[in-house]
């Protein structure tokens, strides 16, 4: 049984709740019966050694695993009173409301403007697109650097800027939750710091779940940390407890760098 601390949801309903979630790739179990409550407007970090299932778990939270052939999910992910895996749920709509940012910045071969406007356009957005693009770029802390060259190719941006553009693109469709899979691992320390500051800002409006290999990063930016090992949730609680005084021996061994 995992050690799970009291999670303070700040009086709000949890943003997301995984219940007995398991993921199989063929006959191999990648995630074993994980239950996890994600409080709203908080940053939750998923940590653990390579192959522990943290990215798989993350991808389950917006049905991104549907796209992986041979992947099978059991259990529930409750979002706004609904199980995301119910048959009447539209996975595309799920991914709009629960956005995802990937490890490598993956802008489209289009302009900065068009990258940001892409999601709203295909979702049939009928408002003021210019102001939505500006708002999204501002939220992603990129506006000041690109406002006078919105028609330039996204590829003209630096890696860190491209990643912030991808975050802007995710925010433009007004998600409620943003999943981030190692969003800063391909970036230099300065760009990493900007992404971290951005995450801190974003949690006022969004709930963020982040997978990171960088333990110091998890410690710096998250409110709650979940430690996974070999597909199992070992310990989940306030980040300061996990990093200063973990209750589970395996968490202790991992955060002190004794294995992993």
């Amino acid at each position, binding site marked *: 049984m995992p050690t799970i601390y009291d999670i303070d949801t700040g009086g709000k309903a949890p943003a997301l709740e995984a219940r007995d979630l398991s993921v199989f790739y063929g006959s191999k179990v990648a995630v074993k019966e994980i239950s996890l409550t994600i409080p709203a407007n908080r940053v939750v970090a998923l940590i653990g050694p390579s192959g522990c299932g943290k990215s798989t778990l993350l991808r389950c939270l917006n049905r991104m695993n549907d796209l992986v052939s041979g992947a099978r999910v059991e259990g529930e992910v409750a979002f706004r009173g609904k199980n995301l895996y119910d048959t009447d749920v539209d996975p595309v709509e799920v991914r709009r409301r629960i956005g995802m940012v990937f490890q490598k910045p993956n802008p489209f071969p289009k302009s900065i403007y068009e990258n940001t406007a892409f999601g709203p356009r295909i979702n049939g957005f009928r408002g003021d697109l210019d102001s939505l693009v500006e708002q999204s770029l501002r939220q992603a802390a990129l506006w000041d650097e690109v406002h006078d060259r919105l028609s330039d190719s996204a590829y003209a941006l630096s890696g860190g800027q491209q990643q912030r553009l991808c975050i802007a693109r995710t925010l433009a469709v007004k998600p409620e939750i943003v999943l981030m899979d190692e969003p800063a691992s391909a970036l230099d320390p300065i760009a990493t710091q900007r992404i971290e500051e951005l995450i801190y800002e974003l949690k006022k409006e969004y709930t963020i779940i982040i997978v990171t290999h960088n*333990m*110091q990063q998890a*410690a710096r930016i998250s409110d709650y940390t979940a430690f996974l*090992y*070999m597909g199992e949730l070992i310990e989940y609680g306030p980040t300061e407890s996990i*990093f*200063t*005084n*973990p209750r589970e021996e*395996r*968490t*202790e*061994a991992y*955060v*002190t*760098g*004794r*294995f992993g």
Partner: protein
Amino acid sequence: MTIEQKPRRHFHDELDTLQKRLMQMAGIVERSLGVATDAVDSRDPTVAATIMSDDDRVDELEVEIDERVMELLALHQPMATDLRQIIASNKVANDLERIGDHAVNIAKAARRLADTNPLPKLRELTEMTEITREMVSDALAAYVSRNAGTARMVCVTDDKVDNLRRSLFRILVTHMLEDPKRIGAALELLLVSQNLERIADLSTNIAEDVVFLVEGRTIKHGMDGHQVLDSDEDDALD
């Protein structure tokens, strides 16, 4: 489920060195305290010089420990037990350095005491000395063995030392009032008791750090719900 444990060699070597330095420091301080208090008992003026030069070594070690702590924190970003151990080492080093200073004060008092008219043996002082020395060695033993139980006992014992100090204060003042020729010795012993009481407080700090190290919990200033008597508050000597 088994976990293959691969220690971070470089980091843990550094951490081991930090602990070795701390133990070196503890050894010197404990010995100095023993020698200084024996010198009070035997009115031996000769030990002060040795204790002072030992204290220089203690000071050097404290500086070295400070530097190592800073380096470990900056370069390795330690977590969990490692982090608590480093923080605790830093605090314990600080407390040891101050215990060392008090041992010097006691040795100097012993040196001056040799020139005064002796007082009759004071049972309270002997007892206070014994308990304080035990507190120091128990706190250090608790640190080495990571024993929170022993550490908590040290904290409790501190009250005894505070009470003995109050008794000694009254006894020594009575001696001074009865015979002005005893004032010199009584004043020195008063100073010794004051230093012992401080040492007992510092051992309590070390013991509290042991609990923090082992359990990740702060117990000082009554933070764990226990009422802690602050020995300094109602005292005429401070």
